[in-house]
């Protein structure tokens, strides 16, 4: 956006300032000289990009305002929320926490212990070992004294990887079930977990997620308050890197040491402000994070669980829930609980982050394409008319526009189309706008939950809000465009596979494998499924 900002404003200024005075000959030489091409592109893209930039940044500010209002509303009701009552009530809806695990030997025992210790009158933990190749299961068996039981799981939602065995603690000591299955990816593991879940609500989380002690109570509260309509809830997810953990709980929120992680801390704060609380306020929440979401089990079964063929399975699921309920004419709500409930480890290196962002963007595009019928369709209410067009316009397209700006601006300066002073000035203005958005989100956090207490970390947060504009944002745009590109490249293969799917519909399970999924050699490893920041 910011690079594109520059581009737009440059061209806008160009005429009156006489900064941009293309030679008459270059006009006719479109494509003949690089300079000519740049000039034409600048002239062509100026106004649309300018409007785009204004719209996107203003929309962020509006969403942050809405999020602030939503959080204020939430906090004013802190004393009347009745979490204490819910924790003691025998009528509180029971929850199955489904936790897929693949090669998690480093943390699995701690995570499971922490999840068993969550405050809730009736919850069970279902761990799905998705064909781990390390000691994940052996450690679990030892720690919880597991014994294999010949329990058959119902086939309520389809599962691709065969379930090998079911294990429970000896003597029924803790409400834990461990399902071992052949590797099939995160979504498939979650589906097996849904089948094994015996409670009314299913909480989908990750093996490396750290949940707050009251997470289940706060996030299940909307189901109790509005039992007929609420079908899914999501909690806020924060970056845990650098924070102090005791017994699987976050006791002190700290800034991580590396800048890559710091940028993401700030990004998560902004994203959950802009993307979730704001949209929830508009009753148009279309994305529940894979790291922490809660669903009614019966509705999950009705829609067929997660789609294991989709990279953005969490976004896809939320969208499918909306679509299903709307098409069935059932009044429903998907609610975001702004209370920080879940903490996740974010990639600390650029390489891992790049993979994650490519996957997210690809998942976003894939899901939007799958549900393109909903976009702009009044039948789907605010989701169809407001949220999805917004996602297409400002989430799907944004990195492309930004990258174009990032590439064209230096090019225009280098070729002497635009003087560097003007470019620098405009760039500063545009990135400044982005910093305003981020710092506004930090202010909302400070006014609402203020989980971070140290002054040093406030300084680091503000610094990250500024510094992320030097490199991190541009790289993120590049990775996201790469994700889109991989999908476009893969599209042909998917179509080919879909032909085979039609032929094989009666017999073998479909072989649709998307290139990005297949690229991961050997077992499929995907955590936190898909997510879109913002």
């Amino acid at each position, binding site marked *: 956006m910011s690079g594109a900002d520059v581009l737009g404003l440059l061209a806008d200024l160009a005429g009156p300032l006489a900064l941009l005075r293309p030679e008459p000959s270059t006009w006719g030489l479109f494509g003949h000289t690089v300079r000519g091409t740049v000039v034409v592109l600048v002239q062509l893209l100026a106004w649309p990009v300018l409007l785009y930039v204004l719209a996107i940044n203003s929309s962020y500010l509006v969403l942050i305002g809405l999020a602030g209002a939503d959080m204020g509303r939430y906090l004013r009701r802190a004393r*009347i929320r009745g979490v204490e009552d819910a924790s003691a009530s025998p*009528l*509180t809806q029971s929850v199955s926490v489904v936790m897929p695990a693949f090669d998690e030997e480093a943390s699995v025992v701690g995570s499971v212990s922490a999840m068993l210790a969550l405050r809730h009158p009736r919850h069970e933990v279902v761990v799905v070992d998705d064909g781990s190749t390390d000691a994940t299961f052996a450690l679990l068996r030892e720690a919880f004294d597991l014994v294999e039981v*010949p329990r058959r799981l119902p086939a309520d939602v389809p599962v691709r990887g065969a379930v090998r065995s079911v294990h429970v*603690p000896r003597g029924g000591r803790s409400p834990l079930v461990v399902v071992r299955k052949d590797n099939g990816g995160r979504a498939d593991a979650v589906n097996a977990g849904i089948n094994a879940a015996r409670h009314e609500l299913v909480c989908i989380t990750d093996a490396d997620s750290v949940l707050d002690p009251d997470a289940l109570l706060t996030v299940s509260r909307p189901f109790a308050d509005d039992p007929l309509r609420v079908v899914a809830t999501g909690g806020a997810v924060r970056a845990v890197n650098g924070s102090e953990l005791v017994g699987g709980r976050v006791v002190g929120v700290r800034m991580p040491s590396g800048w890559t992680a710091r940028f993401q801390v700030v990004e998560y704060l902004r994203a959950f402000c802009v993307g979730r609380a704001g949209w929830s306020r508009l009753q148009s929440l279309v994305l529940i994070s894979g790291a922490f979401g809660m669903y009614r089990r019966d509705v999950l079964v009705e829609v067929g669980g997660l789609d294991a063929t989709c990279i953005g399975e969490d976004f896809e699921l939320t969208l499918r829930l909306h679509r299903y309920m709307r098409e069935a004419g059932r009044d429903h709500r998907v609610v975001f609980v702004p209370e920080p409930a879940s903490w996740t480890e974010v990639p600390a290196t650029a390489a891992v982050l790049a993979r994650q962002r490519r996957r997210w963007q690809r998942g976003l595009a894939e899901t939007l394409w799958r549900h393109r019928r909903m976009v702009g369709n009044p039948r789907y209410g605010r989701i169809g008319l407001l949220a999805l067009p917004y996602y297409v316009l400002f989430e799907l397209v944004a990195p492309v526009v930004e990258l174009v700006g990032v590439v064209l601006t230096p090019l225009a300066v280098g070729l002497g189309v635009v003087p560097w002073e003007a470019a620098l000035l405009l760039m500063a203005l545009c990135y400044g706008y982005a910093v305003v958005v981020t710092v506004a989100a930090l202010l909302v956090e400070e006014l609402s939950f203020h989980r971070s207490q140290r002054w040093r970390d406030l300084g680091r947060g503000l610094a990250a809000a500024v510094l992320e504009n030097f490199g991190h944002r541009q790289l993120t745009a590049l990775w996201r465009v790469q994700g889109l590109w991989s999908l476009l490249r893969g599209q042909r293969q998917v179509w080919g596979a879909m032909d085979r799917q039609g032929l094989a519909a009666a017999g073998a399970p479909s072989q649709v494998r998307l290139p990005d999924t297949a690229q991961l050699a050997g077992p499929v490893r995907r955590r936190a499924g898909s997510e879109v920041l913002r």
Partner: protein
Amino acid sequence: MSPLALVTAGLVLVSVLVLALAVAIAVVRAVRARRAARARAVAEPLRPLLLEVAVGEGPEAEDAAAALAALDPTGWRSVEPAVLAVLGKVRGDGQRLLVELLAARGVVAGARRDLTARSAVRRATAAELLGAAGYAPAVAELAALLRDGDPEVRLVAARALGRAGAPGAVGTGVEEAPRAAATALLASLAGARPAAPPDVVARSLLLVGTPAAPALLAALAAPEPLVRLTAAEVLGRLGATTAAPALEDLVLRDPVDAVRVRSAAALGRLGVPSATSALRAATTPATASAVRRAAVRSLGEVGDPSSLRCLWGLLDDADGGVADAAAAALLGLGAPGVRLLAQVSSQGASASAAAVARAHEVVTCAVAAEVMPPAGLAEVEAVLADVLARASRGAAAEVAA
């Protein structure tokens, strides 16, 4: 204004905004830290007094309460949040003293006034306070709040009624409070849309407890299914055995399946053997699946030997859920049920393949997970020994032949 000047102005504006926001964050943080420190400094010396009141024993508690009641406004402001925080967590004399303290400081009167405030949050907060205090005189006002226009206020009122109408409530009118609260709570579920979430109402009715039983019994005949359903649920959890005949009637004849399900579950909780025949009748294939499952589960909970045969017959039911529930119920019946399961599992009793598989699964799961009680384990061993003996006798006969 030239475009360059415009850009420069924009840049200045953006910089000022960023700075202003950053300063705002710092100010918010500093003010909060300072306030918290000041409140701590004032409240810390008062904390022992509050603890003394909450314990509620002896003249020391009375003295501490008097000391808190005589605090200057600043001191009271700093200690009030702590008082409100322990409210609802103490019972008996401690609760009485705390409520008297709050009444003396005018907090109770303020809350009662706030029940009609314009702000929904204030109404709800007031209701929450009166509920946490277990303040019986406010039951009528809280009941009126169940008709509030704001759903959140109604929810909080329903929750508060449970505490203000509970047996441990304080204040005048404690005798009539439970019945009034129960009636109002049940009435809130009548109508096209319930005034408060049914699970909140049910929880409050449970808190009111046995005094609510007459109102609940009457509610079993209410025209609204939600009222019947909630009343059945609560009666079951209260252990109101007098409700069993009416619940049996609902299991067999209610037009709404959800009501039949809850009634069946309630009968299971009550554990009255006389309910067995009604529950058995509800397991016939003509009945809705959910009702059958609930009835089967309850048969296991009631544990009457007369249901053995019925449950055995359901082990290979076409409805897998019913069959699973039957196997689990047999396991729950203890030794006789386990013996039957072990016999079916070892094909000693004439049974279909599906029944054998199901019985085998439930027995082996229980044995493997070591959740089988010793008596059940003895039964399994006896059956297995019997099977082995028969097999060896058969082999010997074969050899002899």
